């Protein structure tokens, strides 16, 4: 899932500036399950904004809405008829949702209430960890199912490096050495031979180095009748 966290309230207030009527829009998908921008968080933030603006002497009218997925037109289109009455929209979705709102509704400014942080999973209740960098050329099949691009601080393809000490990374003792994990798992699975092959430099053109990416599936496109 996409993992995000809410911006500090003071930063959100600054972003909202002198807006007097605000719609806070949450998203019912990734940011709901990481407790950053779902219906509940929308309610809490809207309440906090109302109270803070009142304390500052400029009461703000703050309404709430949460859509199932803020990154798809079908789900955000029903918001259109409400948007005219608001000075700004504050989105509690990831950066994709914020941009979807701005693209779909060009006359209304949608501001971000979250910092989109990474693609990851909940390691335990309340703890999320990064697992994927969407590099566009998955190598999990070569690395015992553990990603060195997302989980090795140096993104090494032929690790570990000399900074791996007792199974942890020199960057931070809270970071397990991805290559230690890869090696241990490969030993367990009897696939060490695979790791002894030297991997050539990664083709980063399939990642962000090739510019913004796009996938076109002609088999799925709807072709309008001539």
């Amino acid at each position: 899932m996409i993992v995000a966290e809410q911006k500090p309230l003071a930063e959100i207030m600054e972003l909202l500036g002198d807006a007097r009527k605000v719609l806070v829009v949450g998203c019912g998908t990734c940011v709901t399950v990481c407790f950053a921008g779902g219906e509940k968080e929308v309610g809490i933030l809207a309440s906090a904004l109302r109270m803070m603006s009142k304390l500052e002497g400029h009461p703000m009218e703050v309404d709430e809405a949460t859509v199932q997925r803020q990154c798809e037109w079908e789900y955000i289109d029903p918001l259109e008829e409400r948007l005219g009455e608001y000075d700004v929209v504050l989105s509690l979705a990831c950066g994709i949702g914020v941009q979807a709102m701005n693209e779909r509704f060009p006359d209304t400014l949608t501001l971000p209430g979250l910092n989109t942080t990474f693609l990851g999973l909940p390691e335990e209740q309340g703890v999320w960890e990064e697992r994927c960098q969407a590099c566009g050329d998955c190598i999990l099949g070569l690395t015992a199912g553990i990603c060195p691009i997302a989980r090795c601080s140096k993104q090494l393809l032929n690790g570990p490096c000399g900074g791996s000490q007792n199974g942890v990374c020199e960057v931070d003792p809270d970071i397990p050495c991805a290559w230690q994990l890869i090696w241990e798992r490969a030993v367990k699975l009897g696939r060490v031979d695979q790791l002894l092959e030297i991997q050539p430099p990664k083709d980063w053109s399939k990642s962000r180095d090739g510019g913004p990416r796009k996938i076109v599936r002609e088999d799925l496109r709807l072709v309008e009748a001539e």
Partner: protein
Amino acid sequence: MNDAHFEPKILAFCCRHCAYAAADLAGGMRIQYPPNVRIVEVPCSGRVEVTEILHAFERGVDGVMVAG
């Protein structure tokens, strides 16, 4: 109302099965509690969400008690 006589408005969310029943019993025994405490009966104190507590503050209460 000046500060010397400030009496906070308290909203109490009380569980039907214990705290609310206790308040009910107190009433039955003619034991008084201050009128600035307003009780809301909830089916379980676990039902009380953060948003309800915040809404109470927004509407002007000075304190919220969750009893269960």
